[in-house]
């Protein structure tokens, strides 16, 4: 085997486990502290009732729009890829020894390709186009026991991976939004979204079993499970209904130009001003589905094969013997039979895929003009997967600079300290936020990290001018107002006049 093939193997090994470990389907969340700033264009995408307090128009496009990336797992990447002597090494034993019994790994990437937010007299209208790719992979530690134990010892002769689940999806959303000041206290908003699914892999309750006979003369392979698959590329199917190959030519271009799997969804949001200092906001997002109908299929993992070794009978006997089969053909049959156990059979058919609804609830208290405090809870429910992030945030504002710090609790298994900043120039808004500051230093050594960053152009932003006017003209008052009501408040006759 040449070096190129070796590298190919390593890549494949890494991709099978790590891409098994890196997968999609709508677990999109942003650092909770971003909900502290309602004029942030990401928080507006994640809560439709958010809008700017001024009349500035927000515009962002690919390149400026930035991204949000989230990684969350029950283990660290550094558990799997260790770096002894500074070199990255895949270490399955270390991985096995450091993972809990039930494991998950989630990733999400969202990239706004275009964003426009225009204020109106009573609110704001918005439009955005966003690419989403996300995944979640769940498995028990038993799934990798075969790698650790093999099948030689009698106690490891009966292997079962237990249930392995994977949802990985990519889709794009075109959203039209409307946010309105319903009354002095209540803002409401809605996003109506047209979705287009690009790709989906859903493996549900897959169980791989390998049972070895005590004398080693037979191995029973067995698989069961189901799932869905939709791909943006051409593929070929074998006569036994398993997939022979995918055509990877221009796969990315095909992914980005697939519009044959339509879907609909809505996001709803509201913000309620409890008092001058307190407000609460709620959003429910992604109430909808995608109808995958192009290159879409249902998968059935129902393979079973008893492997007893390669055939010697036909290898020894000659073609004149009755029932003779070419032994090389028999070798291929055995290999295909083993392969077909692991490869699911597919039936080409469309299916509807429900997006996982996401909820956000945020409470904010303005402690002073300078400092605000907030509590945010974000959760996602999809099939058996539940993800929750609880965040305590603090926001400090100096003029056009906002700095926020946060402590987040991810599900119940990890805590992280985050931070971020947002800066507004007259013509642009820039921000960067992460819910795990330490992960900037060593992302692989953290179970959870997310980062969101972006820039949007601001048109018609009069803040700067007003501020300058203030500087040059009437000075801002720094004194306190008297707590006593003016004397005429208690004189109704005078008031009428």
């Amino acid at each position: 085997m040449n070096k190129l093939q070796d590298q190919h193997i390593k890549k494949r090994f890494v991709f099978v486990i790590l891409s098994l470990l890196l997968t999609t389907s709508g677990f999109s969340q942003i650092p909770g502290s971003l909900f502290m700033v309602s004029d942030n264009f990401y928080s507006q995408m994640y809560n439709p009732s958010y809008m700017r307090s001024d009349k500035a128009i927000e515009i962002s496009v690919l390149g400026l729009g930035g991204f949000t990336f989230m990684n969350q797992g029950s283990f660290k990447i550094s558990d799997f890829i260790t770096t002894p002597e500074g070199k990255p090494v895949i270490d399955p034993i270390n991985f096995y020894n450091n993972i809990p019994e039930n494991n998950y790994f989630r990733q999400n990437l969202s990239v706004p390709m275009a964003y426009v937010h225009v204020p109106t007299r009573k609110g704001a209208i918005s439009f955005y186009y966003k690419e989403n790719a996300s995944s979640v992979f769940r498995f028990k530690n038993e799934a990798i026991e075969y790698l650790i134990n093999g099948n030689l010892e009698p106690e490891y002769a009966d292997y079962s991976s237990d249930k392995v689940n994977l949802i990985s999806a990519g889709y794009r959303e075109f959203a039209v939004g409307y946010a309105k000041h319903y009354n002095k206290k209540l803002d409401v908003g809605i996003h109506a979204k047209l979705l287009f699914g690009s790709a989906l892999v859903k493996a549900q309750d897959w169980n791989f079993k390998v049972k070895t006979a005590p004398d080693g003369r037979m191995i029973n392979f067995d698989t069961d499970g189901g799932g869905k698959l939709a791909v943006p590329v051409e593929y070929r199917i074998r006569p036994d209904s398993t997939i022979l190959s995918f055509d990877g030519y221009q796969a990315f271009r095909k992914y980005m130009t697939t519009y044959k799997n339509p879907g609909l969804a809505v996001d709803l949001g509201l913000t309620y001003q409890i008092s001058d200092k307190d407000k609460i906001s709620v959003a429910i997002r992604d109430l909808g589905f995608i109808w995958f109908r192009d290159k879409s299929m249902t998968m059935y993992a129902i393979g079973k094969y008893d492997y007893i070794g390669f055939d010697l009978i036909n290898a020894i006997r000659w073609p004149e013997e009755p029932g003779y089969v070419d032994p090389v053909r028999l070798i291929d049959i055995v290999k295909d039979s083993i392969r077909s156990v692991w490869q699911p059979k597919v039936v080409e058919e469309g299916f509807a895929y429900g997006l996982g609804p996401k909820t956000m609830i945020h409470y904010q208290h303005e402690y002073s003009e300078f400092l605000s405090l907030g509590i945010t809870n974000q959760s996602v429910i999809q099939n058996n997967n539940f993800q929750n992030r609880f965040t305590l945030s603090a926001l400090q504002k100096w003029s056009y600079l906002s700095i926020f710090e946060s402590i987040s609790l991810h599900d119940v298994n990890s805590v992280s300290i985050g931070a971020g900043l947002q800066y507004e120039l007259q013509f642009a808004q820039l921000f960067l936020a992460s819910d795990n500051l330490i992960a900037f230093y060593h992302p692989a050594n953290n179970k959870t990290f997310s980062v969101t960053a972006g820039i949007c152009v601001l048109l018609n932003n009069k803040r700067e001018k007003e501020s300058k006017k203030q500087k040059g003209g009437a000075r801002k008052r720094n004194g306190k107002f008297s707590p006593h009501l003016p004397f005429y408040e208690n004189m109704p006759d005078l008031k009428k006049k």
Partner: protein
Amino acid sequence: MIKSFKKHLTKFAWILFILFLISCKTDEFKFDEITIKEDFRIKLKSPLYTGKDKKGDILEFADFIYNWSKPLEVDTTLPYTVLEYENRTPRIIPTDLIFNRSDIIDSLAFLIDGEYELEDVQLVFNVANASPFDLNTEISFLINGIAGPPILPAAFEAADFARIPIVPVTSIDTVLLDSAQCESFMKSKRLKLTAWYNRNDFINQNDTLSAHYPIDYSIVLIGMVKAKNE
């Protein structure tokens, strides 16, 4: 001082933020740099070859005598033996043919080469012999048509024809491959199998033998699988 600090607070914040980003340690690596841990092994046991298929068809005494696809010239002046078949005419063969080494498989595709290496390879020969003679087999792995070091398990014991009914005798012999054998095992793409029987008195008492004495012949592979890190 405080006023000055406040005035330049934004600049300070940016400078601190830029310093923070510059100081970040990243986990960058290239895929070619990733290797599997050097001492990582998987203990594996797997069937390799079988002489008994799922339909119940099984290798027989005649199969280990000669590669019957090759023409056989019989010198009638030499001692001969008659091999009896159920569904075909008997074969008359030189008696020595049974006891001489024959390449019953000259070259069979052997396709275990993959993205791994094997260490501490053992081949477990599990043979239930129902023939009247001890059976010897020798395996060689061919590299560019040249046979590698032979792998020779102990003879598989013959059945006891003095007892009725005749019960096959099961012999299990495990051969630990040395480094040269292991290398040819890993690199080879073709297999050669040579077989012969040990002569005993039974041949002197019987000039006609059944071709169908069943011989359940299997080879199981035991080894440590290791990823290739080249």
